């Protein structure tokens, strides 16, 4: 949670961020625009959009990697849809009581609380169930849609921006917040990398090794909620989970080590984000959709790369080692049967 400690601290941070955005990052991007001849790099609001997708490209796969490999890809989607209910709560409260609460703040609260509830449910029943996630997902979305229509359409204006995402809503303050969240999430994942990896790889052995599995599971779902809400503005509620899943899936096919898979997933997400935002600007199409399609493009390339290397292996059985792709038939896998 953001704690507003003292006003001076906030002013200091804001000042630093202002300097970073216009003088440091802005100057570099201006230079890039001049050198490359790509004019969009020079527009301040596109500079903010690029910075935002760079942040999303870091935190999405960083958290998503630990979800995907536990087959919990649905959690991101579920929390995004309940975050939508949170947005609706914020808009509804504002309209009903003439307040000006930031809908993203209510979205964050609702998503984090849902995340913890889902995790408690899992701890209690010892099973992640697709069915209960589907109920929470659709339930969240249902609450959102009911609240939005409950005020005679007054607040439904602008809801598209939350559903499908938008580059136009990326203000200076939201980029600042995204940057802060990126630093926080990266630091937390770095600090808890070992237990997170152990729990993801082999939960039972991790528990036998006296690692507090429940604590790290809770951390993971809360981080997921934070990432999903902060990426929601650009990606949209419906598509935001893709940034936690698609780059990770692409990286898992090509990476050799787990650390490498984290790095490759971030690179894939950065590539997709920058390409997607650029396409979105040039053709006036949705940013979230463009980014997801670019990410799926990367994934498709890893699939194609895998097929090519498999075929080459079959044609030249003793193909050279050191192929970029590791999809070599290295072990026969035994003949495992389940009992």
């Amino acid at each position: 949670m953001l704690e507003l400690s003292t006003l001076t601290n906030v002013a200091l941070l804001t000042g630093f961020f202002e300097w970073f955005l216009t003088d440091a990052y802005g100057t570099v991007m201006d230079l890039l625009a001049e050198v490359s001849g790509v004019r969009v790099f020079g527009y301040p609001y596109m500079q903010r959009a690029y910075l935002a997708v760079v942040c999303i490209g870091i935190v999405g796969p960083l958290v998503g990697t630990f979800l995907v490999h536990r087959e919990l890809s649905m959690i991101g989607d579920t929390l995004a849809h309940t975050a939508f209910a949170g947005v609706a709560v914020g808009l509804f409260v504002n309209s009903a009581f003439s307040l000006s609460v930031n809908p993203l703040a209510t979205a964050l609260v609702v998503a984090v609380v849902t995340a913890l509830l889902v995790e408690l449910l899992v701890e209690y029943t010892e099973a992640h169930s697709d069915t209960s996630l589907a109920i929470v997902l659709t339930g969240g979305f249902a609450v959102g849609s009911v609240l939005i229509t409950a005020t005679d359409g007054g607040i439904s204006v602008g809801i598209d921006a939350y559903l499908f995402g938008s580059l136009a809503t990326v203000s200076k303050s939201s980029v600042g917040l995204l940057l802060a969240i990126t630093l926080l999430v990266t630091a937390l994942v770095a600090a808890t990398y070992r237990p997170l990896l152990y729990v993801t790889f082999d939960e039972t052995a991790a528990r036998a090794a006296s690692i507090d599995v429940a604590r790290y599971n809770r951390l993971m779902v809360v981080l997921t909620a934070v990432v999903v809400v902060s990426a929601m503005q650009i990606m949209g509620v419906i598509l935001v989970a893709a940034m936690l899943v698609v780059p990770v899936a692409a990286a898992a096919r090509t990476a050799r080590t787990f650390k490498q898979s984290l790095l490759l997933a971030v690179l894939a997400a950065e590539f997709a984000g920058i390409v997607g935002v650029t396409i979105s600007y040039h053709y006036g199409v949705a940013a979230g959709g463009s980014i997801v399609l670019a990410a799926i493009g990367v994934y498709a390339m890893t699939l194609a790369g895998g097929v090519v290397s498999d075929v080459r292996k079959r044609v030249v059985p003793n193909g050279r080692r050191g192929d970029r792709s590791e999809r070599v038939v290295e072990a026969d896998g035994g003949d495992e049967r389940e009992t």
Partner: protein
Amino acid sequence: MRAVSATDDHDDRNASDPVVSVENVTFGYGGQPVLQDVSLEVESGAFLGVVGPNGSGKSTLLELVLGLRRPDSGEVRLFGESSASFDDGERVGYVAQNVAGAVRSMPVTVKEAVRMGRYPHRLVGRFTESDRRAVADALDRVDIADLADRRVGRLSGGQRQRVFIARALAAEADLLALDEPTVGVDAESREAFYDLLADLNSDGLTVILVEHDIGVVTARASEIACLNRELYYHGDPETFADAGALAEAYGTNQRILHHDH
């Protein structure tokens, strides 16, 4: 009588404590009794084979021993400490059935997996020289050093189970607990795997092996526990065959020595 858990010293426990002590343990899933009034002790250096028919509560007993479940009544102690509050994670190595999902698809190398054995020692902070040496020695000991950079999910079943043994060795565990580790592993690798277990045991590692293949267990274990909800036998493998516990536990009309898959 809790050990001082702030220190890493393994010798601060009472040396006379058994590695595992199970006292009058009863456990059930939602009213369905799985274990009833089971008591047994495992001394340091033992190789205990736990056998019994499918659904006899073998795996549950192992989970109770490791503190993964709490008994409904009775008490389980690990190294003299209640297994519910036991937190010397590095002293226990666990090898599950060869079917876990994430293990197959996750891009984790053999070396990364074995390094996890050091995590209870060092959850944060740089690995020291002794951490690295423990990992290297463990890879050598189970003869998978040449596989260090391969992905665990792309190994054969037998190789993969060696990785998990190495993880326990890297932890410098005192107790190795295995739950039907060679299901789906080819016959030749099985033999080698159990020979390795016997070797490690003769080096002083305490082993608890849950296994449905009675022949494997009686050939290598130093003691047998035969379970079917209740404990039917606990003692030497030699007298096990004569004790009639087998027929009693399995029921007389079961084909006891055949694999059930």
